[in-house]
């Protein structure tokens, strides 16, 4: 296991390097003037002198590779620069927000895995049956529905029409302290929508996996032994059918991040998505670059996690290979 983790880490280094370089290259090709972006509307009336000074301060007049290397070395030391949109060190911006994003994403992921597993198994039990048709149609429709749209509809229904759940934010502001209960109430809608947006994938893959497993010999063997259908499903079909799903769970991290970006925006959840969108509208390069790298890191971590999960779940997989 240690070797696998090591190999993954070794792979991560060049990937992160390449991604950061790509980010710098895109920025270098951009017609956007980072100095003007930094100066904001004040920059419109600022003198050329001031702009030149800023340019020197931001170091945008140096060659691409130098800037990239400087950024990389200071990033390794923990200095990610200062966000021009939020005028705050990038590390602080991320530090304050990433926890909430992780909370949202993991809650949603958990719901999606559990619900998706359940629906997938229900559908797989009788391919072509009405449960199967209902579940697959639902999954396809959900897959086609943009999460932000779903979020708005859900918000309209539950927060505006029924008034049972808060429409957004993290807490009620009347209060000044974040309590778990409040966060939980505010978490329901965004996590629910994010889970819905991730659900189709789980449903369809579990349905496929379990459906295939139901056709295979282990299940035939289990049936022949006289096991109850429930035991056959949960103890055999599900357990072998979930294996391919496990390997792919890590590959869901990008989609999860994508969904979280949209859902956080709809529900003004104070995670990194809000920061991402804001930094994007302001062409805030330091923050955007750091967020891109962070997301890449999360994806790589997800891949590692999937490998480990698969290794834990399937005794046939050795970790020496």
């Amino acid at each position, binding site marked *: 296991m240690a070797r696998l983790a090591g190999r993954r880490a070794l792979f991560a280094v060049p990937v992160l390097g390449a991604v950061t370089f790509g980010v710098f290259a895109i920025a270098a090709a951009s017609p956007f003037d980072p100095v003007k972006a930094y100066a904001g509307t004040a920059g419109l009336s600022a003198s050329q002198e001031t702009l030149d000074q800023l340019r020197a301060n931001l170091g945008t007049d140096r060659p691409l590779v130098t800037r990239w290397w400087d950024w990389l070395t200071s990033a390794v030391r923990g200095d990610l620069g200062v966000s021009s949109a939020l005028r705050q060190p990038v590390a602080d911006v991320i530090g304050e927000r990433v*926890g909430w994003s992780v909370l949202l994403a993991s809650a949603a992921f958990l719901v999606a895995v559990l619900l998706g597993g359940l629906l997938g198994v229900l559908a797989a039990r009788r391919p072509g049956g009405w449960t199967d048709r209902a579940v697959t149609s639902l999954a396809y429709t959900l897959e086609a529905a943009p999460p932000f749209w779903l979020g708005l509809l859900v918000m309209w229904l539950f927060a505006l029409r029924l008034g049972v759940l808060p429409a957004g934010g993290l807490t009620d502001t009347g209060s000044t302290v974040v309590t778990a209960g409040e966060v939980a109430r505010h978490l329901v809608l965004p996590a629910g929508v994010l889970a819905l947006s991730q659900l189709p994938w789980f449903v369809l893959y579990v349905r496929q996996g379990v459906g295939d497993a139901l056709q295979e010999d282990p299940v035939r063997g289990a049936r022949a032994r006289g096991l109850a259908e429930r035991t056959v499903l949960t103890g055999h079909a599900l357990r072998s059918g979930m294996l391919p799903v496990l390997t792919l769970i890590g590959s869901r991290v990008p989609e999860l991040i994508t969904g979280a970006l949209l859902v956080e925006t709809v529900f003004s959840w104070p995670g990194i998505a809000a920061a991402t969108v804001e930094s994007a509208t302001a062409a805030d390069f330091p923050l955007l670059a750091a967020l891109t790298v962070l997301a890449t890191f999360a994806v790589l971590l997800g891949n590692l996690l999937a490998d480990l999960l698969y290794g834990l779940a399937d005794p046939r997989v050795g970790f020496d290979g």
Partner: protein
Amino acid sequence: MRARSIRVRGALATAAALTAVSSACSAPGEGGGEGAATSAVVGIAYEPETLSPLLGFGKDGNSKIFDGLLTHDADLTLRPALAAALPKVTDGGRTYTYALREGVKFSDGKPFTSADVVFTYETILDKGTSNPSKGELDAIRSVEAEGDDTVVFRLKYPYAPFAERTVLPIAPEHLAGGQDVNTGSFGTKPVGTGPYKLVKWSKGEQLVLEANPGYWGGAPKIERFTMAIIKDDDVRATRLRSGDLDGAILPPNLAKAFKGSGRRTYAARSFDYRTVTLPTGNKVTGDTAVRRALDIAVDRQAMVDGILEGAGRVAHGPVPTDSEWFTEGTRRTYDPKKARAILDEAGWRPGKDGIREKDGVRASFPLWYLSGDKLRQDHALAYASDARKIGVEAEVQAGTWEVIEPRMPEDAVLAGGGSPSDPDFDQYPLLRSDLAGDGFNNMGWYDNARVDRALETGRESGDRAERKAAYDTVQRELVKNPGYTFLTHIDHLYVVDDRFGDLSTQVEPHDHGLAAGPWWNVEDWQP
């Protein structure tokens, strides 16, 4: 093993974030979530770039953290603040003498003196200070202290509205004087004499103010005043509805939805107009016939009813019709038929697609609005729609100011402006030909010698009747040659929780700063 450690790390991160946010949100000296009425959270749309008066913060008064020599009351009458009384005006309007209020202290305990006043004005006027609005103090020849408690301003010309300018907040010399005015920390950690002290400013998020117990006007009852900076209108509305905010500024369509929800809607009258610049440099918009046709082709009342939900008034020029400066007889009547006639007469003939042409020039021009500004977008769309009906095409485009600014000499822009204090304040920069292309001054490159002269007279004459005549001239010229199509004066709408009782609003300018709206006098609220 490895998987577990990852999970643990994730949990730690979450926990760390929880603590970080909870410590950021919890108020010292305040218990749980009862909040009570001694604190208020309001959502605002704009964030100041700096909190230093030296760089322009609070230049129109009412900055909460600072006081000016004078201040405005509810109906915009000047009242003494740091000055003990209204200034004595002598020398034919060229000398203003202010006696200062005694015993005033900055919130750090240091006394306020005439030296601070002199420091503030001199620093702003200094060439090295990048204060974009220093032009507003152009009339000042010198500022002098006479003893600790008197300040004398000497002017280059008898600038009639000068007293209105002295609402400008006063910064403490002992703090702001020791550092670089443009980059020093005073801009983020200001100290003033005002009713509130800054507790925290998390940029892009919120400004937290705390009552100044030693305020010369008496300690405010609202002990904690938080301004949440939420640029997105929809998000602001959402959070107001969810009880996250006690009050917020909202566009009309969103404010409408709050009727009868335990909140009150306040419509603050304003001088804030929305106008379309018709640049002189564009062959279509530079044509006086086109300008005049457009001026009467727009259905202003429909915009007020439809876009502003009735919360505003039609604009027949920069001055609202109910202002004493408004020139009767300059009202535009909606008359598309006449507009078409004007264009026909001027030789603009309808082309194949219904868009007029003249000498090979298509009656089409781009119309920019600030992307993300829904109100401007809707005005622009309605304008384009009305223009189309008389055969003129306004191609609506969205952009940020960076994109729009270089195009202003050629392209039309959905712009805004207006100031209630004095007609000079907004008309001079808007219409003077020598200010064309100077930042956001005279965005339409309006060039009219008679207007230029009248503006000069209005600015320098101390005589009220003479000034009125000058601004009448300006407004009449704008009918003859409308270089801008003025559309509406918009009411600023604020929705505030009932528990703060009945509040009031001032007449507001276009740049409604931090302290506009019902919380213009939050220090006087009696919860």
